[in-house]
C-alpha cells in the first residue's frame, strides 16, 4: 500500500490509526532486535499521537494522517531523547520539535522512533557509532553495512512492511548512500528547502533533511509536507514549494540527462556499472535525451573540499557539547578546561574526535588560508561547474556509490582515507547544495544497487519525474 492510499484510508475512516500504530510498533520491535535500526522506539508518545488523530483532532485531515514516520536521531523531537547517535547527548530531551518534525505532526504523521546513524553523521556505513550504540545491519545481509550515515532510516524504510517514511539527513551523501545500500528511494533536497531548525548540526552549510521511502511517490509526498520557509531558520529559502507528487506521472520525454563520465570505469564495480547503464537505457526508451557529460573539478576536488569544510564546521558545532546544561556529564573536579576535556574524552567516539581535530587544524591561524579558506573557494568552482552543466542538462546520472554494500569485516580494514573515498560521487552535489535522489536500479548477488540523479537547485520536481520513470 502506498502512503497516499494509506492516508486516504485514514481520511475515509477505513483504517483504525490506533490499532495500526500498535501493530507498527510491534513490527518495529521485532525488526529492531535483528537489525538495530532504531536507537529509541517512542511507543507512548506514538500511541498518544495516534489517539489524537483517530479522535479527529490534530492532523486527522492532514496530508500524512496516521502515517508512521521515523526520525533520524540527529533531528530533535520534543520530549523524546535525541542523541545524534552520541553518548555525548545521552539524556538530551529537546524542549522543542525540529521544523520538519512539527510540520510532520501538523500533517498527522506519527513518530515511531529515532533511527540509528553514524555518530553526528560522521560516516558512510553507520559503523562509526557513538559509545554504547550498535551499527544497524543491511536488510539483505546482516553481515553487511546498510550505508550511512542515515543507515537506520534507510534500513527501516526497506524492512518495515507497513507504509512508512523515514526522515534522514545528508551532509555529504548520508541520504542517498544508505538508500542505495538498502534498495530504497532517498531524496536529498536543495540546501535551504527544508528547515534545519532542530537538526543537531554536523556541517551547517551542508546539512539537509530529506525523506527516505519505498517509492518516489511516498518521498515526494513527504517532501511536500516538510519543505518551505521557516522563520526560525535563516538559511531556509522562500522559493515556492512545488506539488512534488504531481511530477510522478509527468512524461519524461524530451528531458536531457547527462551521464557523468568520471563515475564509470576504474574503481567502479562492474555490477554497479551494468545496473546504472540499464537505468540509462530505460530512460532513453522513455524518450529522455541521455548524453555524456564531465564534471572534472567536482569529481577531482570534491572529497578534499568536503573533508575540510565539513570538519571545520563540525568542530565548532560540537564545541557546545562540554558536559554543561544537557547530555553527558562528569563529577565536577578541577577547572573548566579539565572538566570539559574529561567529558569530551570519555563521551565522543573515535571518528568524532578525528573530525574535531581535523576541523580544528584546518581553521587554525597559519593553516586557515591554505585549507579552510581555499576549500570555500574550490566549493564555489564546484558550484559553477554544475551550473554550467545544468545549462545543457536537466539532470545528471551516475552510480550513487561505486561499490556494493561491504561486509563489516571489510570496513574494519579500511583506512580513514579509503573510508572517505566512498563518498566520491555524493559529496559534490552536497557541496553545491543540489537536490539528488537515489533510485534502486538493480541487484547483484541479492544486494541492491542505486543510481543517483542530480538536478539544479529547487528542481526536486524533475528528480521525482525522472525517478518515477525508473520504477
Amino acid at each position, binding site marked *: 500500500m502506498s502512503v497516499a492510499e494509506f492516508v486516504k484510508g485514514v481520511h475515509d475512516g477505513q483504517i483504525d490509526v490506533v490499532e495500526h500504530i500498535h501493530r507498527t510498533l510491534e513490527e518495529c520491535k521485532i525488526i529492531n532486535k535483528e537489525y538495530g535500526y532504531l536507537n529509541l522506539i517512542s511507543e507512548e508518545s506514538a500511541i498518544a499521537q495516534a489517539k489524537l488523530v483517530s479522535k479527529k483532532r490534530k492532523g486527522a485531515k492532514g496530508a500524512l494522517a496516521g502515517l508512521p514516520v521515523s526520525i533520524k536521531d540527529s*533531528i*530533535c523531537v520534543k520530549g523524546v531523547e*535525541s542523541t*545524534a547517535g552520541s553518548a555525548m*547527548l545521552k539524556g*538530551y530531551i*529537546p*524542549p*522543542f520539535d*525540529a521544523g520538519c518534525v512539527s510540520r510532520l505532526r501538523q500533517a498527522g504523521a506519527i513518530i515511531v522512533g529515532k533511527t540509528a546513524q553514524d555518530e553526528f553523521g560522521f560516516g558512510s556505513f553507520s559503523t562509526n557509532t557513538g559509545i554504547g550504540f550498535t551499527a544497524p545491519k543491511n536488510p539483505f545481509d546482516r553481515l553487511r553495512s546498510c550505508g550511512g550515515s542515515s543507515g537506520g532510516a534507510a534500513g527501516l524504510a526497506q524492512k518495515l512492511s507497513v507504509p512508512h517514511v523515514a526522515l534522514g539527513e545528508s551532509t555529504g551523501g548520508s541520504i542517498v548512500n544508505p538508500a542505495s545500500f538498502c534498495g530504497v528511494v532517498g531524496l536529498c533536497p536543495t540546501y535551504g528547502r527544508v528547515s*534545519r*531548525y*532542530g*537538526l*543537531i*548540526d554536523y*556541517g*551547517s*552549510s*551542508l546539512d539537509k533533511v530529506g525523506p527516505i521511502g519505498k517509492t518516489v511517490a511516498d518521498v515526494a509526498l513527504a517532501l511536500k509536507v516538510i519543505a518551505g520557509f521557516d*522563520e*526560525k*531558520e*535563516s*538559511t531556509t529559502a522562500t522559493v515556492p514549494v512545488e506539488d512534488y507528487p504531481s511530477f510522478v506521472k509527468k512524461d519524461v520525454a524530451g528531458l536531457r540527462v547527462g551521464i557523468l563520465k568520471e563515475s564509470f570505469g576504474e574503481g567502479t564495480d562492474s555490477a554497479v556499472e551494468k545496473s546504472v547503464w540499464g537505468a540509462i537505457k530505460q530512460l532513453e526508451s522513455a524518450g529522455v535525451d541521455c548524453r555524456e557529460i564531465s564534471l572534472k573539478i567536482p569529481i577531482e576536488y570534491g572529497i578534499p573540499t568536503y573533508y575540510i569544510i565539513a570538519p*571545520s*564546521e563540525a*568542530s*565548532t558545532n560540537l*564545541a*557546545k*557539547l*562540554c558536559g*554543561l*546544561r*544537557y*547530555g553527558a556529564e562528569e563529577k*565536577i573536579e578541577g577547572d*573548566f*578546561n579539565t572538566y*570539559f576535556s574529561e567529558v569530551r574524552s570519555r563521551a565522543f567516539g573515535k571518528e568524532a574526535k578525528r573530525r574535531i581535530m581535523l576541523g*580544528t587544524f584546518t*581553521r*587554525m*591561524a597559519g593553516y*586557515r588560508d591554505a585549507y*579552510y579558506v581555499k576549500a*570555500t573557494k574550490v566549493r564555489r568552482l564546484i558550484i559553477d561547474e554544475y551550473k554550467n552543466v545544468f545549462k545543457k542538462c536537466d539532470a545528471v546520472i551516475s552510480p550513487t556509490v561505486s561499490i556494493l554494500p561491504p561486509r563489516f569485516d571489510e570496513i574494519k580494514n579500511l583506512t580513514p582515507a579509503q573510508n572517505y573515498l566512498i563518498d566520491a560521487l555524493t559529496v559534490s552535489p552536497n557541496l553545491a547544495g543540489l537536490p539528488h535522489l537515489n533510485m534502486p536500479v538493480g541487484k547483484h548477488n541479492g544486494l541492491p544497487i542505486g543510481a543517483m540523479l542530480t538536478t539544479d537547485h529547487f528542481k526536486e520536481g524533475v528528480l521525482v519525474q525522472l525517478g518515477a520513470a525508473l520504477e
Partner: protein
Amino acid sequence: MNTENAMTNAKQFASDVIIGLEIHVQLNTKTKLFCGCSTQGSEEPNTRTCDVCLGFPGSKPVLNKAALDAGLRLALALGCTISPKLIFSRKSYFYPDLAKNYQISQHELPLGAGGKLALNDGTLVHITRAHLEEDPASLIHQGSAGQGYVLIDYNRSGNPLCEIVTAPDMRGAEQAREFLNRLVSVLEYLEIFDLGSCIIKADANVSIAESGYIRAEIKNITGFKEIERALTFEVERQKLAVQRGERLVQETRGWDPAAGVTSALRLKETEADYGYILDPDLVSVDITNNMVKDAQANLPELPAAKTKRFVEQYQVKFEDAMILAAERSLAHLFETVAKKFDSSFAVRWLRHELSAVLNAKQTTWSAAGLDERLLLELFELVQSRTVTDLTARDLLQKLFERPFSPKEYVAKHKLASISDRGELEKIAKKIVDENPQAAEDVKSGESKALNFLIGKVMHQTKGKADAGVARQLIMKILER
C-alpha cells in the same frame, strides 16, 4: 618586540603615552541579537533564555534587524565606511560563559571601518572597525579563589554588542576619558544606548615611549570610571617599571577595581587563536546603498555639529556649548530656554546652576527625568524677578528631590522676593542699627563688613531680598 620594531614604533609615535581602546557597547534593542528573548526584565538568573541563547543542540540563530539598524547608525555617526554585506563569523574558544563555546561575531568584514571621532584639542581618534557580536553569559564567582565554583547566568547571553576598535591615537588616560565621553554622547544622541542600564566595557592597549612602546593589553574593564582609573594606573606602572630598570614585556593584564591595580594574566598560547569560520547558520545580509542613505538621512545633528552651531547661533563660549551639547535632551532644553529667555540666561542657569545640581546628584538631565515645564516655570519666576536668584537656586535643588510647581510653592511658602523698597529699607535700617561696629567698618571702606551686613539682610528675609538692592540701601543708610 625586538629592538628594530621598537625603533620603528618610536619614530611612528609622536607621544610619550599611546592608548588604543576596544570598547564594547551594549545596544538597547528590545530583544537579543539572535533570538526573541528580552534584553531587559527579570533579574532572576536564567529566566530570559531560550534554546538559542542557551546553545541547545538543534537551535539556530536568527538576526535581530533592530540591532543591525542600531549598529549601522553608530558606524555612520562615527564616520565609518559601511560594508556592503553583513557577515558573521564564529570566534571559537572554550570558556564557561559561552553557551556554544564560540561567539557569533564579525571577523572578515566588519559592519563599519575607517571612521574617526575628534577630541577637544583637535586630536583625531581613528575608528579601525565597528562590528556587531553577541554578549556572553555572566559568571558569578562563589567561594574563595581556588576553592570556589562559578555559577552561570545566561540572561545576558546573546545581548547585542557593538565593538568599537580605535587606533592607538590617545595620548593619555585623560584623552581616553574624553574619547569615551564623546562616544557616550554620540550613543545617547542616537538613542541606541541606555546609560542607566546598559554597560560599557573596554579592553585597552597601553604603551609608553620609554619602553619603546611595548604594549600591555588590559582586558575587560567595566564602566567609565574604572577605565580611566585602570589607564592612569597602567601608565604610571609602566613608567615606574622603566625607571627601576625593568624590561617590559608584551602581555595581557587584568584590572582589579578593588585593589586598584592591573596584574599580568596567565594565558595559554592557544587562546589567541580563535579559528574563525563564517557562521554557516546565518545568511549574509545585503546592506544596500539605500539602507545606508536612509540611515544617514535619519541621523540626528550630532554633538560636534551642535556645539559648533551653538557657538555661532547663540554666541556661547565653546566650552559651554560643548557641555550643553554633550547630552541630547540638555541641548534641546538649552535651545528652548535660549529662545524663550535669552542665551546668556540659558547658559547661566543650565550650564552652571543646573549642571551643578545634576553633578552633585551624580545624574544627568535625561536620567533625572524632571518635567521640563516645571523648570521653565521656575525660570519665568527668575526672569520676572518674582524670586531672587538665591531662592531660585534653592528651588532648583528641591525640584530634583520631589517635583512640584514652583509658582504654587513660592505662593504657599511666601518666597516671593521683597519688591517693596520701603519694607526692605526698614529691615536694612534695623540691621545697620543692630551692628554698629560693622557699620563703622563699612564707612572706613571695609568690603567684608558690607558683605556681612548684606548677608544679615538676606538671612533676615530668608533670601527673599535682592542682594543688589540690599547693598544699595545699606550704602544709602550709612551715607546719611
